[in-house]
């Protein structure tokens, strides 16, 4: 059993809190699911309801160009109550984080065995998590798949890892970028030497699951091309420029059409570039690579929401032993805190009060991204420093200067 009794109690409290809010304030979802920070074009519950409406009447959910999410979600919400689904997903993610934390063992002398329950509770009571659950952000499905993949990888279950990764990629594409560190993590847990033969079977599982999911989707919608274009095409080519907390929408509103394709390519290459760089630089710490990648993807992907941030903040404490080595966490935390409050204020000034303009909101999303990248960069620095101190124990605690 991963969880202690106290943690189970707090799990129940967290679930009860969510369900109580749903029950007591039934309108909260419709308010929150309009917030730009919670609902992006690819995770909005309102858009999902629109797709569901079309789907239930036998029309393709992608007609009308509002819905850009995976077709299987429609089946889920056709039958299940959304409040229960999103609460359960949060519980699943928290449980997965607890599993990952309990399994984690690092060679660093600073490392102490983690209490998985604590990390899970920290995730569950994170205001970002609660808000995105209340706002029904469908990113929760992706997050659950990612955490499931990491949890399976850290228990050495290749099939589970690949299945969950494929599911995540099916929901929102980018989890496929996490495959290299996931495979490394699995190999590290199983203590196998990575060779081409040992990857073939997992890769086959990944591809097979993906093919299976896509063919089911094609059956549901009736047209595979529709799914590929409206769901994944929209995510890759960023056709919907609804404001969100990411860096893309403003840029692609402003850009001249002639350069649009070029810069979409540049932005994606920039994002994908981190996968190779981090995986090659830190092959011994694949879990840190995964969590840093999630942080970077949250900053640089086209449609990020606070749900993505909550996953990153849920995984970051796995490396809390490097906290003493970080340098700017207070600054980063303050920046994030200010951006969190100023974001909705500026959005209000822009959209509702009309006394501000889009630059107000975009400026604060830049600050937000700055805060997040400071957090990622700082933790990366700390991990590198930790690694270096393991190589050269005599330098521990000494000031280092480049000569």
């Amino acid at each position, binding site marked *: 059993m991963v969880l202690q009794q106290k943690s189970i109690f707090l799990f129940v409290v967290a679930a009860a809190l969510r369900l109580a809010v749903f029950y007591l304030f039934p309108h909260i979802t419709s308010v929150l699911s309009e917030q730009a920070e919670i609902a992006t074009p690819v995770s909005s519950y309102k858009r999902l309801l629109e797709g569901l409406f079309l789907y239930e009447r036998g029309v393709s959910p992608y007609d009308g160009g509002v819905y850009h999410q995976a077709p299987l979600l429609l089946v889920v919400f056709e039958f299940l109550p959304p409040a229960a689904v999103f609460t359960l997903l949060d519980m699943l993610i928290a449980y997965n984080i607890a599993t990952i934390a309990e399994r984690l063992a690092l060679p660093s002398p600073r490392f*102490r065995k983690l*209490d998985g329950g*604590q990390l899970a509770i920290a995730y569950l009571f994170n205001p970002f998590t609660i808000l995105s659950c209340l706002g029904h952000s469908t990113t929760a499905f992706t997050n659950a798949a990612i955490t499931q993949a990491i949890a399976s990888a850290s228990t050495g279950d290749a099939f589970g890892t690949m299945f969950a990764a494929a599911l995540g990629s099916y929901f929102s594409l980018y989890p496929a970028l996490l495959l290299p560190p996931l495979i490394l993590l699995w190999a590290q847990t199983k203590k196998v030497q990575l060779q081409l033969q040992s990857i073939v079977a997992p890769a086959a599982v990944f591809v097979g699951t993906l093919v299976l999911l896509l063919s089911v989707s094609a059956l549901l919608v009736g047209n595979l091309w529709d799914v590929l274009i409206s769901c994944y095409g929209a995510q890759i080519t960023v056709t919907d420029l609804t404001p969100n907390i990411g860096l893309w929408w403003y840029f692609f509103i402003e850009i001249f059409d002639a350069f649009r394709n070029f810069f979409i390519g540049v932005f994606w290459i920039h994002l994908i570039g981190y996968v190779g760089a981090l995986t090659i630089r830190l092959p011994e710490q694949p879990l840190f690579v995964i969590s840093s990648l999630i942080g970077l993807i949250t900053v640089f992907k086209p449609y990020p929401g606070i749900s993505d941030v909550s996953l990153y903040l849920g995984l970051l*404490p796995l490396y*809390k032993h490097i*906290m*003493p*080595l*970080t*340098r*700017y*966490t*207070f*600054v980063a*935390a*303050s920046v994030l*805190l*200010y951006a969190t*409050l*100023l974001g909705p*204020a*500026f959005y*209000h*000034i822009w959209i*509702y*009060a*009309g*006394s*501000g303009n889009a630059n107000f909101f975009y400026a604060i999303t830049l600050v937000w991204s700055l805060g997040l990248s400071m957090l990622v960069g700082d933790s990366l620095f700390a991990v590198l420093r930790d690694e270096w101190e393991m190589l050269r124990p005599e330098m*521990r*605690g*000494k*000031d280092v*200067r480049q000569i």
Partner: protein
Amino acid sequence: MGLLRSSLSNLRTSPRLLAVPPYISLLCMLGGIIWILLLPLDEYSRRTYISENALLPGQVHTYFHGTEQNIFRAYYHEVADVLEVQTKTAEDGSQQYMKATPAHRNERIRSIFHNSGIKTASQSYKYNVGGQELHGENVYGIVHAPRGDGTESIVIVAPIENFEKQLNTNGVTLLLTLARYFSRWSLWSKDIILLVTPDTSAGPQAWIDAYLSQHNPETVSSLTLKSGAIQGVIVIDYPFRHLFHELHISYDGINGQLPNLDLINTAISISSSQCGIPTLLQSQHRYAKPEHQHHYLNRLKVLGHGMRNQAIGHSTGAHSVFMPYHIDAITLTAIGQGREDEMAFGRVVESLTRSINNLLEKFHQSFFFYLLLQNTRFVSIGTYLPSAMAVGAGFTVMAIYLWLKSGYEQREQGKEQITKPTERDDGSQDKIERALADPNITNEQLLKQPSAGGVDRVKTKVWKSVDRHIALPAALLAILYLTSLVPMAILVTAEHETLLTRTGALCTVIIMVPVGLSFILADNTYLVDTNILFGPSTAAISANGVPKDLPEVGLITTDSSPPLDPSTRLTQFHAILKALSLLVLGLQITVLATLNFSLSMFLGVLCSPLAFTGYYPSSPLRARASLISIVLFNPFVITNFAIMGAKLAGYYDDSFGMKEVLRQWLEAVSFGWSVWGAWGVPVGVFCVWLPAWIVAAIGVMSSFIADEDGTIKNKVEKVKEDMKGGVQKVQKAAVRDSSQVRKRKK
């Protein structure tokens, strides 16, 4: 370069640096206030100018005179007949007073509209505020634009009762005359909506809500006649019969939103240049000479009055309710005794309507964030915002300072090697203090110095980093912020009869909260218990932003710290609680500054003493100063001062007692909350000020309770003695103490 870096990192860890932040914070706050006081100077304000070319203020001929005056007089009799109280001598010679019913009144107004060939409609509404029902009926007519497509409109409003509850007979008559006059013109490209409301507060609100279909159909009826998007609103207020001297322009909206500066500038320019009528702002109409407007103090008065209106965020006329929907609106009020007649007023409205009619797009060119100093000078957001930001930064600086302080503890180094602490050589201690004050001596030298001197190895005070136990203060703060919503909900939803008693009860409860909490907290066992509950791993948050392990320079050492003794633990708890509270306060002030600058500024100034109060168990002077400031700067005392101030300033005559004024204010807040959605004052007081005050009060009370209640102080003393026996004993003592306290409780 290397030298610079090393001296910088030395500076970073210097204990002297820790003494600086409170002064920086004080400087920020004083700077913010002084900044505001500088704004009325010519160097910091700008002349107003028309930014939107399409407006062309005063470039058209006005034709509202001559025969229109006869029509005005005719209408006046018809309107006065139904608006004013009529005296009638009965057959037996007794006087009878009669007033037309609202239905009769509206029928008359509609028939006048109708005779001018204008489509009319009416709308009834009903609001229930604090157990009192408020109902009425709006009447309006629409002049369709001959050259327009009905997608845009201009609204002209005349409330029957103006903001001061005076009968606006002349205004309503002027509106009806203008309606007839406008409907004969062919040059309108925007529809003109002419609205007559019973009052300035609920009527316009019901109408604009229904116009934009944002109303509650159960209490506010829908509009049967609509036009396009409203580009501008002009409210006509002429509450007397005689000739007037000046036009007063009100512009403050609900929640401190302001109309586009172009609209105000256009009105001022038309009124003063084209029609030769002086204009005034913010109820300042006692200038002996026009040039007195330029005086510093008069400008400051206009600024202060404007900031007051903005901070309260209540309606200042019928125009206010349009602002939350991003519709620019102003009220023109005739004031003073002079030589201008209703035709001159009409020409101003005509010319202003023509200017708005010229607009190609909504008002957007000019400023939405500004503070006016007089009718031709303003301060823009870039100039005034830094003041609120500086005040907010003051809180944040104190928060960071307390946070850093809570992560360190002053310990005496070299304890193990030294036989008795009392044998400390005071001279060498002096030497160290002198060395500390000398910037030429580095920290490393300082550590070496005593031993190099060959004297007894000296105990130096060393800053040790300690784990921060953040869970309890964070949880307490979260609970305080959440529970502060309860009194807010109680007050804004209360029945008006129970308002005063509820406020009294709330005051008592709220003042008891910090006292009770500090008694509970003074008992260290709770702190120890939470440590068991949450585990020591909460220390993960420690040393944020501070190099805990990295450069081991100077006075900061990084040995893993033993558990804190209870008194340090209590000090740390208060420091963290205060740090978090100030961090949140700074954040709130900053965010509010972007939404409602004046509210944020007032709150910032009122909360500023709270930043410097704290838990000072060992310094009675500071503790007393803190006590005085929390007693003076709490919402209830300040409200009392404000009422006294308002009475002294002549806003209320002597027939109003303190309680009566307070009741009026509370009713206004409750009305504003439920009808206008004015959240500024309740949110500012209950979500920003009150939690910050309670946290400050907990700290201050605790320092007294630890003094007066002998048990706590003695315990700390005893633990200090035990410290000499070593760290293990300390732990035992803490456990023993806590069990003793438990027993005592039983």
